[in-house]
């Protein structure tokens, strides 16, 4: 499949930059969590989401096919979802690169968290309450529900984040 080949052929940096663009493009203006600087909070949000959907714990999510290449899977998901399909396909066809004469350092993990957090906030009603250093998240479905297959893909992606050490 041509698209599948295209995703496979991207190098890691291109995948990272593509997810960075998708995350920002997707982010609703009402997002409670913005930007990538706060990816630790994003990771906790994803964790709370896993609890919300009562996803079964995976001992070694990085070991299965979904976890082995979470970032690429995120890109595949973005290509399939209506809100991201146009840009995702454009980015896969003509991938972003480090083409400016400046430094830009963004770990792939952070880009992935950014994308997943933005996606979560598009498809679920997320309320974040911060009080005395503690953050709590409430979820409600109700925007555009994911079908079972999509939800399965997304949970698999989210479990990658929850289980991966932040420096990956």
């Amino acid at each position, binding site marked *: 499949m041509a698209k599948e080949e295209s995703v496979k052929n991207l190098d890691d*940096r291109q995948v990272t*930059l593509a997810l*960075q*663009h998708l995350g*920002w493009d997707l982010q609703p203006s009402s997002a409670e969590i*913005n*930007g*990538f*600087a706060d990816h630790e909070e994003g990771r906790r949000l994803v964790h709370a989401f896993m609890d919300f959907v009562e996803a079964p714990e995976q001992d070694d999510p990085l070991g299965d096919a979904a976890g082995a290449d979470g970032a690429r899977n995120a890109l595949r998901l973005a290509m399939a979802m209506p809100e991201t399909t146009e840009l995702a396909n*454009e980015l896969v066809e*003509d991938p*972003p*690169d*480090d*083409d*400016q*004469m*400046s*430094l*830009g*350092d*963004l770990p792939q993990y*952070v*880009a992935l968290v*950014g994308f997943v957090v933005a996606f979560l906030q598009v498809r679920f009603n997320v309320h974040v309450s911060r009080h005395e250093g503690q953050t709590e998240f409430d979820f409600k479905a109700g925007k555009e529900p994911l079908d079972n297959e999509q939800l399965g893909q997304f949970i698999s992606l989210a479990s990658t984040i929850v289980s991966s050490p932040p420096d990956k």
Partner: protein
Amino acid sequence: MRHRKHHHPLTLLGETSLSVEDGSVGRAVCGRAGLEDDWRRVKMFVDRVVDGTLAPNRADIERLHGAAALLPHAIVPTLGVTLARALVVELAADGQTDAAIVEARRAIQIGEGVEPRSPRVLALRLQLAGLLMDLGASGGGSDPIDEARTQIDVLLATVHELIADTPLFERRAEIVGQWSEAFGAALRLLLDPEVVASVPAVEDAFTLHESAKAIAFVARLEGMATREQPDPPDPPHEGVARAAWLRAAALDLQDRRSSLAGIDEGRLHRLESVLAELRAVEEGTAQLRPGEGGRGEPASAQQIARALQRACIRPTAAVSLFTDSRTTTAFVLRTDREGVGVFRCGLGRDLLARVGLSMSREYNGSLEDGYPRILRNRPWRREITEWDTVMKQMVGLLPHLEGAEQVVFAPHGPTHALPLHALQDADARYLAERFTISYAPSLTALVSGLARHQSPDRRPTSAYVAGVASEDDHNPQYFEEDSDLFATGWTVREDAGGNATKAKVIANLTSPFDVIHLSCHGLFTPLRPALSGLLVCDAEGNRPPGRQADLSPVQRGRHLVSVHDLLGRRIPARLVTLRACSSGVQNARNAGDEFDGLTRTMLAGGARTAIASLWNVDQQSSSELLSRFYGYWSGDAQLGTAEALTRAQRDFIESGDPVLAHPYHWAPFALVGDWR
């Protein structure tokens, strides 16, 4: 007997460095004023009013007025003036203009008897003048305008006294910057049809605005012995070298003044002796210094017009901008017309600064929050909405440029960061399509530069190219293969990668090449501009680290070619190209127009012209653009630098490729200085 200070607590208002030793009196006073809960809150409140972080509640101000009445006589005026400023703002915001005017007059009367030159009183004069002008403009007659004129006259006279009493040019610039709003108000009085009594005094306004622009830079430029003609003779070498050293030392100490305060008083005393020595050297060499104005004095409209007529073959418009909080004023001098044209529009400093920041964020992305860079092949996905506002307002400038072939912009404040050559007219044509465009730090600086160089009579042939990536760059070849930009016919000396050491780069900067082309990362240090510069390899040939925040002081010393390193060195190149990330970024020193940056350092060092980028350039398109520029320039001895760059830009705009025709690709470089 142990001496004990008896500062009344309310004397501490705005004087946070003093210690609080007599809380009981403060509590008593505040208690009488109905603020008995916590007198310290009163102090904090007024401190925040004084530093501008709090817009006070009117009832609180009035209660504090009550408290002030109980204070010792000597303290009342200062406190009264401070509070009156806040009250005037409150009243004006409430639409009670008459009451605000009465309050301002009253406070000025108190203040001028005690501290006539204090910033508090001067700020009140400015506030009062603004209110009076608004009143006059809305049908209040000529009396308010006359009174406003008196206030501004006194204010500017005081500012000039403060400037005259200040020995260091950079500090003078600081004062000008601090009172740029006063210059703006004076321009309004001279130019705004709603408040001008008879005919707008355009030439006076021009002289006034020019005196507020880049005085320290002009002084530094005039201090350099880089005249190509030996007439008058150069000052003695050792005197120039000593003056340069002293300037660097004084600048460095001034940069660190706030961090030294209270820690190392000895260093501050040393600063004073350095300045005294500098003054002596300057006075000793004053008669040898070239330039039209001299000592940072502004050139007049006539002097500038004459200099432009001598230097320009084609009809040329020089446009000098001045921006205050509400208005941008453009003065236009033409080589083919008499007099000074003027255009004013409602573009204030904040909006223009926002546009610059927005442009930088949309093109460069942000490391701070991970905002991605522009996609090179889809640049139109990024919009800078307020840029449209700028263009709509600036369209009114275009009639002043009709018939000119060349335009020189001298920006001011935030407009230094904007690509004015990418403004569009009503037909969506870019200015760069209609005119050959270049920039100047100020028109006085331009005239000074033109006076120091002859028009070149041969095409450029020699170039020094240094390219250094950081050790973390994904594509080091983007930086280190720039000798390819120079086609056949050029003699190029290249130091790339590990060969481009700090010592070599500095040595070659001072060697007689036509072009110095530097492709490396820039380091911008807003708090210590003299320590901004370019990152190259250390003596062992190691590339600099990519994470600039992690640079240790030792690493800085080894890798950084700083503004400080270059001060006092003669840079004889016709052109210095800085193809680093956002190399044109400059720092507004103390809110004035003294932009510290690499571009000005190169010009101050004697380079005729500098090219620098306004945002992080795309490797591919900027290579192509510069390659075309160098080709055009070296291929025709009659072609100036600005015309060659404009031709390269037009190639992109007219290419039919919507990617290259986007300003992100064709407009990143600004050419500053001598365009010939």
